Every structure is written in structure tokens, then in C-alpha cells.
């Protein structure tokens, strides 16, 4: 590990100020320290935000939740409000990592964790995300875990989070403290950037900006499902995952919110697919049509070709489960 200066932020403003000066924010550290050990990341300065008062989950006036960025993945998954009102979030969190890691990993850190692409982690290999312009070893290499949607000829890495996929389904917003502009709020979907020609720039956060909270709108009607398909039953990243919130009324789909993990550079959502499903009667044919649309621009890279049929089958299974019986 390269050496660095370490300091503790006295308040969120100080953290944002230090970040503006080039410091890297550390919270749980479960991903950052791993990357620092491998020298994939080598910050000169760490600003530790763990002592900040951002560890609380507050109920909002409209019946939603405001989740502090330092709330651990364990505490968020175990919160009875989340388990009852936003169970897809609890399920997604519990499907990720291990008990030890979830105790340390934080809400903001989970959103900002880096890809687990093998070539990003291997400093002997080219990677445009780690070293812009060096090339992408995953293209034409081992790419079993890589993305089929939203990729570019520069990068085919996935975003590894489960939590973010559920939050995307739930229309979460991210509250950001900016060193220069005060507080701003964006949709979670607008936090992430597609790789394009700049895969090293993963989010729309500017230097000196820090996530302070995630806001969940009030609970959704209907059934919530998180389905994760992976190589092991526990402690493995998703090959394909789906977070679904589906409401059926009088035999027809009233609302269908769907986000997909393991397939794109960010938690993937396609409103056209949801529009296609809305108002329709559940059927295998409908799931086929929805998946055709979802996968219209999907590209396999060789070892990950299987993700295309896998996503098709997983979506059908999730929609069957979500629309079974009266939707309760």
C-alpha cells in the first residue's frame, strides 16, 4: 500500500472541502482499502467520515425514508421500516457480501463501490477505467461476469451493487453536499455515467461533492422481489439480478418497476419495458415481448453470452412470481 495522510472530518462541510482539495473519502473502507492494498487506488490523502452524524434512518413527512450515508448495510437491511415497506431493499442488501462486510459497508460507499472486473484489479493488465487509454483486457479476454448492456468499446465492466439495484427500482434519490453549491438532490439513476470514452469517470459527482443521504419515496403497492442468480448460493456477485416492484389490479399489471444488476455499468432500468407491461394481462408471451425490448441492444462478449438467455429466463420467473394469484 502506498502511504497517505490520514485525517478525520469534523463535519460534512470539512469532508467536502478536503475532497475538493483532492482527498479521498473513506467510510466503511471494505472496497477502498482492498483496492489500496493492490495499489489499484493510491490516494495521497484519506478523509475519514466515520465520526460524522450521518448514521440515522429518518422517516420523512410524506411517508418515505431518509437514510444517512453512514448507515451500515446491516442496519439498513434489519430496519423494520425497510423490511415492511421496502422489502426489496432489505432482500437485496442481504443477498450481498457477508455478515462481516455488511456491518462495515455503508450506504454511500455501497453506491460508490468500484467494479469487480478482474482486469481492473490486476495492475499488470490494461484497463481504461484504472489507467485511461491503456485499453480493455476484458474485451476478448475472460468476461464471464461482464456487462451486456450500456457498454462501450472502452469498457464492459459491471456495477457490482445489489443495494443500488433495489434503490433504483424504488426511485431513490441521492442527497449530495457540494463544497461550492450547497445541497443538491438527484435521481439515483442520474448518479451513474455510462462508460463511453471515459470509463474512469463513473459518476456525476464533482470534486468536492459527497453523498450525505439516500431518500426513498413512500412504499409502493404490490409485491416486491429481489432475485439474484450467481455461481454460489452465498457471498458471490450477481451474474444477473432483478429488483421488481409489481402491482396487479383486477388481473392486469397496474405498475411494474424493474431494475437489473450484473448486466450493465450501472443499475439498469428501462422505462419502455415498464410501459410495455403496464395495463397488460400477465402471460409468458408478454414477458417475451418485454425481454425482447430490454435486450434489443444487448451484446455478448463471448464468455458472458449466456447472460442474455439467463436474463430472459430470470425476468420470466420474476414476473410469474410477482403476478401470481392476486398480487398479494
Amino acid at each position, binding site marked *: *500500500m502506498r*502511504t*497517505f*495522510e*490520514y485525517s478525520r472530518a469534523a463535519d460534512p462541510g470539512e469532508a467536502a472541502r478536503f475532497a475538493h482539495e483532492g482527498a479521498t473519502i*473513506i467510510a466503511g*473502507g*471494505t472496497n477502498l*482499502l*482492498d483496492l489500496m*492494498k493492490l495499489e489499484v487506488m493510491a490516494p495521497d490523502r*484519506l478523509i*475519514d467520515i*466515520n465520526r460524522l452524524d450521518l448514521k440515522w434512518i429518518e422517516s420523512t413527512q410524506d411517508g418515505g425514508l431518509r437514510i444517512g450515508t453512514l448507515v451500515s448495510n*446491516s442496519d439498513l*437491511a*434489519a430496519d*423494520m421500516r425497510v*423490511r*415492511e415497506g421496502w*422489502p426489496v431493499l*432489505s*432482500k437485496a442488501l*442481504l*443477498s450481498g*457480501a*457477508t*455478515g*462481516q*462486510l455488511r*456491518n*462495515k459497508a455503508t450506504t454511500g460507499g455501497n453506491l460508490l463501490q468500484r467494479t469487480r472486473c478482474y482486469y481492473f484489479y490486476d495492475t499488470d493488465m490494461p484497463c481504461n477505467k484504472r489507467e485511461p487509454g491503456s485499453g480493455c483486457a476484458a474485451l476478448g479476454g475472460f468476461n464471464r461476469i461482464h456487462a451486456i448492456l450500456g457498454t462501450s468499446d472502452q469498457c464492459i465492466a459491471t456495477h457490482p451493487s445489489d443495494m443500488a439495484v433495489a434503490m433504483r427500482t424504488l426511485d431513490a434519490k441521492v442527497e449530495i453536499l457540494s463544497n461550492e453549491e450547497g445541497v443538491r438532490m438527484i435521481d439515483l439513476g442520474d448518479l451513474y455515467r455510462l462508460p463511453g470514452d471515459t470509463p474512469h469517470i463513473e459518476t456525476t459527482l464533482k470534486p468536492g461533492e459527497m453523498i450525505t443521504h439516500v431518500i426513498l419515496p413512500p412504499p409502493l403497492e404490490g409485491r416486491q422481489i429481489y432475485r439474484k442468480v450467481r455461481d454460489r*448460493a*452465498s*457471498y458471490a456477485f450477481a451474474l444477473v439480478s432483478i429488483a421488481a416492484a409489481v402491482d396487479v389490479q383486477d388481473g392486469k399489471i397496474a405498475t411494474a418497476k424493474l431494475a437489473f444488476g450484473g448486466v450493465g455499468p450501472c443499475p439498469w432500468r428501462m422505462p419502455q419495458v415498464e410501459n410495455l407491461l403496464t395495463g397488460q394481462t400477465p402471460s409468458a408471451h408478454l414477458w417475451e415481448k418485454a425481454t425482447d425490448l430490454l435486450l434489443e441492444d444487448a451484446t455478448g462478449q463471448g464468455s458472458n453470452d449466456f447472460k442474455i438467455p439467463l436474463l430472459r429466463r430470470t425476468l420470466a420467473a420474476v414476473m410469474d412470481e410477482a403476478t401470481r394469484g392476486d398480487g398479494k
Partner: protein
Amino acid sequence: MQTQLKINGTEHDLDHDPRVSLLDALRNHLNLTGTKKGCDHGQCGACTVLLNGRRINSCLTLACMHDGDEITTIEGIGTPEELSPLQTAFIEHDGFQCGYCTPGQICSATAMLEEARQGWPSHVTVDVTTSPELTDTEIAERMSGNLCRCSAYPNIVDAIRQAAGKSA
């Protein structure tokens, strides 16, 4: 830099490089070698300790981040003369072969039983609004952060089930 850690009830003052992980602080600076280094990347669980009562991977956190925190290591869980219920159960059920993962397994299980007592659900809990019974499937899922290369898993699950029953 200076960090004060309260480990197994005793305060220790450390003078160290900021890069020192909590794991290396325990083993190399304080000679508390019960906590093991396996992968050093948070994947095996051999370095599991309790931080303010919660289980964490001590390899994936810096000592300097824990000034004033309370750490419990395997040395604070039990002694040869006074074993914890989990330690007794591991011996009775032969929950190990080489023993390298055992301190991590026991620290992890100690905190896991407390999580279960608090009603935390897991990935295998069908209805996350309920507080599930600690079935073998629940135990296995909740312990998935602790690998055992000797694959003593069936006996580890037996040991934890026994300890869970005793402390319930």
C-alpha cells in the same frame, strides 16, 4: 500516528504508520496472534473480530479509524480454563481440523447469535418481516463469510446450533 484501542477490556496506546490494518495492529503490534491472517482481502473471515460488539473483517479496516473503539478478539471470548459456550460446542462437535479458521469462526458465530437474537433476517429468510428460527440453512447463510479449507462445515453448523440452543 497515535491510536488508542480498548481490546478485550484493556486500553492499548499504539504508535503506528497510518497504513496498519486493525489485523496487523493486533498481531504485530500487540502480539494478540489469536486473530488469524488468511486472505487479507475480506474474503475468508479468519481475521473476524468484534468491533463494539459487531463482527467485522479486521484486515479491511485501518487501526487509526478505531481510536477509542472497543475490540473483542478470540483472546477475550474465552480462555482454556473458561471456554465460551461456542468454544465448548466446537470441541464437542469437532468443528475444525487444522484450526486456522477457528478463531474467526468463533468470533463470527458469537456476533451472529446476537444478530439472530435481535431478530435480523438473512438472505434465506422467506419473509424478511419475521425473526426466523436458526435452522441449519440460516446458520450456513449467516456464516458464509467464514471459510474453512478443511471443510468442517457440517460440524461447525452442529456446534453453532448447540450453542444457539443453550443461550436461547
